[in-house]
């Protein structure tokens, strides 16, 4: 073949390639960037020699993104039903996001955020109808998508995308946990629950997650929550750690403390709880007294929260009663107030209504424990409504008498629809706050009866 002939053929081959490229080719070159991301190669890892291709890819992505936009914009002409429309939009967004995530997100946010008549996908209340359609794109490049979501440019609707991002990243617990320090406090509990349900069977992943959790500020993530991800220690191990720790105010210190408390209960087959006696109470007091006041409160609260279910499983309530008394004795009012959030309170601390009311009326008359008091006398009032008026009249003047009258009025309204009895009690209340609350409730029932 002559040189001229070879050049002739080559120049035509070049023309063919140019023609092919002009038409957009077969998609292989233009989608090279996307395919690389499929394999988990992030843009910074790409070799510089590929930058030309990348440019072609970027130019092409714009074209593909435009095509999705055209389809998106033409959808109202299809006269679909609501369910089919949302389904079609989700499919468009799913593929569009792989080509141009930002454009897809903005298109979604410009659409109605109502989740449709019967959403089949999880948690549409939080994520809206579309945000979970981005799952594939989020997995492809978690960081870029997170940065886009949190850029502040997407407005209030970004919350839906953030929630969908958490849901997607449950399969990548390390990445999910890594965002805990920066997310809004109101979303921490949700992310923790997702981590808790995630696959942490790989010890490397579990340890990594635990390390991240420990480093989240304690004000944002309590040690009690971190404990859910930690291995349990034997009593001997926990005791050794406890004795070796000096400062219980740090994250590690709190963990040691909780593990020590936990080990007390998690003895094999609940032997410790079953063999509860005064001696154990003395030991518990002794340990508590080793601790500074703040930490001591946390410790006792931890015992109350942690031990309750095991104790009731063993048919015991003395220990809970002893702990409550210790909280009172050592003046941990905040912890006592907080105990209202525990299932302990829902189940009446495992105490009978009589025992509970006896304990409650002897509580010091303090604002912080008012709710505990009210909650404790309520079941008693319900069961002994007919004798309750006389019983309350024997109360000495003071805070508990006021609250007892308030609860009596409440029971008269809620349990007996008796406006007269309620009025009789309210008229005796002197505390303005308790009275206002009771009057509000009274007005509600009075209006409802009209």
């Amino acid at each position, binding site marked *: 073949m002559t040189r*001229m002939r070879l*050049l*002739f053929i080559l*120049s*035509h081959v070049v*023309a*063919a390639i140019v*023609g*092919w490229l*002009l*038409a957009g*080719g077969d*998609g292989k070159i233009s*989608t090279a960037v996307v395919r690389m991301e499929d394999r988990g190669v992030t843009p910074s890892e790409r070799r510089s020699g590929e930058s030309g291709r990348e440019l072609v890819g970027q130019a092409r992505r714009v074209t*593909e993104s435009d*095509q*999705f936009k*055209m*389809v998106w914009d033409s*959808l*109202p*002409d*299809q*006269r*679909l039903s*609501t*369910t*089919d*429309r949302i389904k*079609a939009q989700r*499919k468009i967004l799913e*593929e569009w996001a792989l*080509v141009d995530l930002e454009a897809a997100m903005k298109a979604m*946010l410009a659409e*109605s*955020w*109502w989740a449709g*008549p*019967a959403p089949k996908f999880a948690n549409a*209340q939080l994520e*809206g109808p579309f945000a979970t359609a981005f799952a594939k794109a989020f997995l492809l490049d978690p960081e870029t998508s997170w940065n886009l979501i949190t850029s502040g440019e997407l*407005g*209030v*609707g*970004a*919350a*839906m995308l953030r929630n969908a991002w958490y849901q997607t990243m449950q399969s990548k617990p390390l990445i999910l946990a890594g965002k805990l320090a920066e997310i*809004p*406090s*109101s*979303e*921490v509990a949700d992310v923790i629950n997702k981590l808790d*349900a*995630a696959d942490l*069977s790989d010890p490397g992943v579990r340890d990594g997650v635990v390390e991240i959790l420990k480093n989240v500020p304690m004000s944002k993530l309590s040690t009690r929550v971190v404990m859910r991800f930690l291995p349990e220690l034997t009593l001997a191990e926990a005791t050794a750690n406890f004795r070796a720790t000096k400062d219980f105010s740090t994250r590690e210190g709190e963990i040691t403390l909780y593990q020590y408390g936990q080990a007390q209960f*998690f003895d*094999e*087959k*609940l032997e410790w709880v079953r063999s509860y006696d005064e001696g154990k109470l003395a030991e518990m007091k002794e340990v508590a007294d080793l601790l500074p006041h703040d930490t001591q409160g946390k410790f006792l609260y931890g015992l109350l929260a942690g031990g309750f279910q095991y104790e009731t*499983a063993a048919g015991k309530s003395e220990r809970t009663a002893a702990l409550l008394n210790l909280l009172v004795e050592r003046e941990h009012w905040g912890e006592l107030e907080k105990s209202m959030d525990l299932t302990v309170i829902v189940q009446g601390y495992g105490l009978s209504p009589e025992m509970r009311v006896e304990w409650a009326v002897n509580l010091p008359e303090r604002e912080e424990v008012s709710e505990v008091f009210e909650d404790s006398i309520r079941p008693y009032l319900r069961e002994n409504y007919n004798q309750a008026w006389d019983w309350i009249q024997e109360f000495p003047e003071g805070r508990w008498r006021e609250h007892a009258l308030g609860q009596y009025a409440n029971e008269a309204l809620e349990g007996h629809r008796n406006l007269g009895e309620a009025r009789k009690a309210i008229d005796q209340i002197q505390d303005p706050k308790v009275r206002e609350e009771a009057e509000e409730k009274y007005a509600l029932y009075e209006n409802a009866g009209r």
Partner: protein
Amino acid sequence: MLLVSGRFRSCGWTCEFDMSCKVKALKLLASHLVVLGGAWFLSNSMKEDRGVGEESSLSTRVPGGGTDGILLARLLEPEVVEPSKYELLKPQLTLAENHQEAVVALLKLLPKQYLRAGMVGRDFREWQRLPPPTGDRIAEFEVRVRHWLSDDREACLKFLREGNEEIYLRGDHPVFASAFTDYALDEGEVDWVLKIPGGNERLYQGCLAELGTAKFLEKYGGDFQVGKEELAKIYRTFPFEDRDLVLKTIIDGKGGGSHKGEALSSFLSNKDHVAQEVTAWIRGLQDSGGIPAEFKTVSDQVFTNWLMTNPETPLGEKMELLQSIGATQMTVSGIVAQSLETLLNEGRDFRYEFRHGRVDAREVFEEMTAKLSPDSVEAEDALKSNLFYQLVGEDSIGAMDLLATLPKFRQEEVLIRAIGEGFKLDDPVLAKAYYDSFPESVNEAEEMNKTRNWDSYVFSGLSRYGDDFVDWVVAMPEGEFKERSVQSIVKWSQRVDSPIKDRVEKELVRK
């Protein structure tokens, strides 16, 4: 351009610029253009050939240069139902040597919500910490159970329900809907499986296909006891002509009222039934007193729900029938609202088309009027106001047309109520723009009304957008609207226990 340069140089190949050279050059250019064009054409036509099925080919085109029809067609295609992991694994997995051992090995790895654990202490906590099972593990468990059933079904059932002291299955475990159903249908053992709680719709469908309506109803249709929830759903498939038999079977059936109600409601929900015929049937039953007193409360409730939500019964007839059933608390507006919502949810998506300007409010109103037949001024006004609530979040200006013919006092009421009713979870920017369009309140009642409705919007916004919603309010310029929004957030935070409380306290209240 090269051609006019006087000399033609290409790849080191030169010639003097004479006529023959000119012709050669033109031929050469033409041939290059042909190749280039050919490649362009080939590339495009290949893409069109690739068409619908191929995922990566997104650059399809449509003659006329309009929207991308093929891409759209592909995206609108109904989803293909993939075979389940169980179905895929079933022919592959060889029989285990010992069924029980194979099942036990998998049992603890199943989703915990379906297992009951009798274990205590450390065992229980360690079990709780096991990672969630993968779909493959669940499928493997189901296939193992399926194998065991073929071999010794009684032993298998006994073991799963009670044979393991520490851990056993709840009756609603999905294995009863997969492996057990599969066994029943493969081996014609429907009778045996139906005695086990947890049968699924597929099982009943298979059974129904085998027996036909009458025999099915006679044999199985009358058992509404606990654990037969799925049975109620099967009633959707019975034809309307069997209505009397169906109703009799339900009334005479064993078991609880709620499942009976569900069965009746499922029967009515069959989309093949003609609404007019169903309405006439209900009327006939009311007039003839053909329903025994002990079932009447249940049936009245089911008929009321059906009438309320079914958009095809004319409003006047609906109202009259509801009153004869005793549903006297129903208002015209409430009935219109329910029927309208069903119509918009299940029919053509007018809300969406309206948002994008494909139909205007008048057209939607006319469509709805034709469907719902409001037969009084009250009903027509109710349709206008309820349709306004449905459309205002999509395009508040476009929706205004609907209000023009309402009495003046109703207009104001509807306008304000639409903040809470119409925007629901929509973009707060839209909701605020709508709110801003109101003139200043003329009296206290109007002001209170605005506050109440804005509260209602803020409450729903906070529950979805959380901190972002608070951020949005914090970033508002100081003024009356911001104060109002802060007040709404404070009210919410007093009712709902959320970490947002602290923020409200620090950033909004103490400021």
